[in-house]
């Protein structure tokens, strides 16, 4: 009999593998005892109990791999070594082989990975059948699609309430669940805030402001742009509010919506008041998202912050109207809300006279194209037109970053911004993004700033700047 004790310093292996290795060694013909383990004090004790030479393991510590074999001869020891190497060498598992056809419906897709969320972006007329199937098979549903008849939305949401499943949408652009962004969403640092929002870019703007202030958002449950209408009656918003109130990992709740129907707003406020956690409500038209974010920080006992901005002095721009070119519907609405007291009436259609703030995410401009957050072609055209239009003094536009959005919007916009600025127009950008976003927010901001645009993280601040520039020149 030969006994061999070896120490392999700093060699890590998981326990499954080490047990397999021990077993493999013991199975070698002619091996009478074998031990493969990390050299912890207790395992060294075991080595002694098995009658091996403890001196051979002198100095070994818990991060070292211990190998002990007792066998008939050297040849068998060598065979044991081969068995050990074999057991500890990583091998690739052979892949399955049988190629199953791709699932055809969201329900069958969910079966292949045990999904609990169905994310639908099929044409609106077909979304109902897919969503119903998902609810029937126990999945929460996010409907990115728009143009779903409201009576179908009501059926889905009532059914969701009945089954304890959340229906996010239709027309739900953004959600974050445990940090995973669905649709258009920004990369968030970890944090205690839970959000409910009937507005995609509203959620994104609030996420970006809070992230900039050092506050993380764990969940942002989109409910779709029609949820707070009188017909739908906030079915999903109330459900999401309750879920966040029950969630031990959420400390503070934020509710965001475009202007809701009055009786629905009252119900949401009553539900918020009944929550055990603080709830900050931002209804567009009552206050800005920046004001809402400030309220969140105050509730958390944090002092006010100045949100990131990359300003440029554009005082001597040419006089003229403000032309707002938006990709985010809520950002457009907020900009109007902020600017109207300063500028007076602001049109929402391209043919309107005077100041116009257009939502290029509207169906009218997205026929046959991706959303302007992805495909900027239409907005770049309009930017060039505004630059050439001498009645325009200030161009205000949003740039939305994050998952789902254009991979490098600044590089596409810079040439046209440079032309606009050299033509005498002022350009103000509302940049909605976080430091963690894949586009690298700060690099995007600097590129836009170098092209001559003044860049603001807060959409309200960008809007104010645009109005200030416009009024300073007309009054001068």
């Amino acid at each position, binding site marked *: 009999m030969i006994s061999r004790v070896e120490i392999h310093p*700093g*060699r*890590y292996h998981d*326990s499954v593998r080490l047990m397999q290795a021990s077993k493999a060694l013991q199975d070698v013909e002619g091996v009478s005892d074998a031990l493969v383990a990390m050299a912890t004090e*207790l395992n060294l004790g075991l080595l002694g109990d098995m009658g091996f030479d403890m001196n051979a393991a002198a100095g070994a510590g*818990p991060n070292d791999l211990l190998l002990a074999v007792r066998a008939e001869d050297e040849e068998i020891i060598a065979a044991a070594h081969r068995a050990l190497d074999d057991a500890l060498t990583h091998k690739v*598992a052979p892949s399955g082989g049988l190629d199953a056809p791709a699932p055809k419906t969201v329900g069958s897709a969910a079966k292949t990975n045990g999904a609990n969320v169905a994310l639908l972006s099929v044409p609106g007329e077909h979304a109902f059948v897919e969503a119903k199937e998902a609810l029937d098979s126990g999945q929460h549903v996010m409907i990115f699609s728009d143009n779903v008849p409201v009576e179908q939305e009501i059926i889905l949401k009532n059914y969701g309430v009945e089954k304890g499943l959340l229906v996010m949408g239709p027309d739900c652009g953004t959600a974050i669940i445990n940090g995973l962004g669905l649709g258009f969403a920004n990369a968030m640092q970890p944090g205690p805030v839970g959000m409910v929002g009937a507005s995609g870019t509203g959620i994104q703007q609030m996420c970006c402001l809070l992230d900039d202030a050092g506050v993380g958002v764990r969940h942002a449950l989109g409910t779709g742009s029609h949820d707070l209408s009188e017909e739908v009656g906030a079915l999903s918003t109330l459900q999401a509010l309750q879920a966040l109130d029950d969630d031990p990992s959420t400390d503070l709740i934020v509710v965001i919506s475009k202007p809701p129907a009055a009786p629905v707003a009252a119900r949401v406020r009553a539900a918020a008041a009944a929550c055990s956690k603080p709830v900050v409500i931002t209804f567009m038209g009552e206050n800005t998202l920046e004001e809402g974010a400030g309220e969140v920080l105050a509730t958390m006992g944090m002092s006010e912050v100045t949100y990131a901005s990359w300003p440029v002095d554009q005082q001597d721009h040419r006089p003229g109207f403000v032309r707002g070119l938006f990709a985010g519907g809520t950002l457009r609405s907020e900009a109007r809300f902020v600017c109207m007291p300063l500028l007076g009436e602001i049109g929402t259609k391209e043919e309107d006279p005077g100041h116009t703030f257009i939502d290029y995410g509207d169906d009218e401009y997205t026929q046959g194209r991706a959303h302007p957050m992805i495909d900027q072609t239409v907005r770049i055209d309009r930017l060039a037109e505004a630059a050439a239009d001498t009645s325009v003094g200030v161009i205000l536009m949003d740039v939305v970053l994050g998952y789902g959005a254009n991979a490098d919007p600044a590089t596409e916009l810079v040439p046209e911004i440079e032309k606009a600025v050299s033509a005498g127009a002022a350009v103000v950008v509302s940049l909605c993004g976080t430091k963690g976003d894949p586009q690298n927010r700060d690099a995007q901001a600097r590129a836009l700033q170098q092209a001559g645009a003044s860049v603001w993280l807060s959409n309200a601040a960008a809007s104010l700047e645009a109005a200030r520039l416009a009024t300073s020149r007309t009054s001068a």
Partner: protein
Amino acid sequence: MTVPAAEETKRLQAPVRVPGVASTAIYGAVSAAGTQATVLGTSGHAVWLLVEDKVIVVSTSDSTRLPNGVQLAAGSSSDLFRMVHHGATVEIGHGRIMLEGLAVTITRWWDPRPALAVISPAKLAEAVAGLPSAVPDIDAGSLRAALVAGSPGGILLSARSLLGKGPGLTPEGDDYLAGAFAATRLLAEALGRDRTTAMIAGVSVPLASLADARTTTFSASLIHSALRGQVAEPAGALLRAFTGRGDVALSHEALLRVGHTSGPALAAGMVMAAQSLIQSVSNGGTA
């Protein structure tokens, strides 16, 4: 053997970029300015890195999320870790881990410390009823007695007899202790047992040093996490289920499937700690 042209060398060395989900417990280490780390070991499922005196593990999607870990979306069948070598020096920081030919970007975070709802001792007793609190090779009698009595000395003594016991990177004795410590820490809070919370917090520092001395650095890292209430994802799910969020039987089964001995030992340690807390309440101790 021919030497590849410079252009080709560059192409061959272009890193494979993969996204990863990281534990918030390593937010500091991963988000800070870059630092160097050493590859302690690799397998098809994981790469263990020594970052200063702590271990961070990068693992595939088909392995368990650990409190000191980063999980990739790719599974072990993609064999990504073949390009990482034991002993190599790698870089970590700015939200990235550069593992030789593999660039891991942290895209999201998960919290390994489960937030637990408030629970009563009776409800907790109901939740853990019938679950095993022992594993064959671990004699936890003295640990149980020490936890019931709230005795720091007793806890240290019994931990000494279990640390490093068993094969593998995380010996079974360590897993049992980690389960017991994390459950004590988190459930004491959920039960409002402030005295127990203070006791376990007080004994954490000497326990952590003891673990450093008596077991693998990797396992000691997990015990440090457990003392802060940070656990592997399925262990957190079981604790949440104890407090009424989730199915206890299903979560327990899922935890048992983790590792070879790790899951059962963690689960048993957690159940034992829950029983000890309930026992200490009924022994008349108040918060």
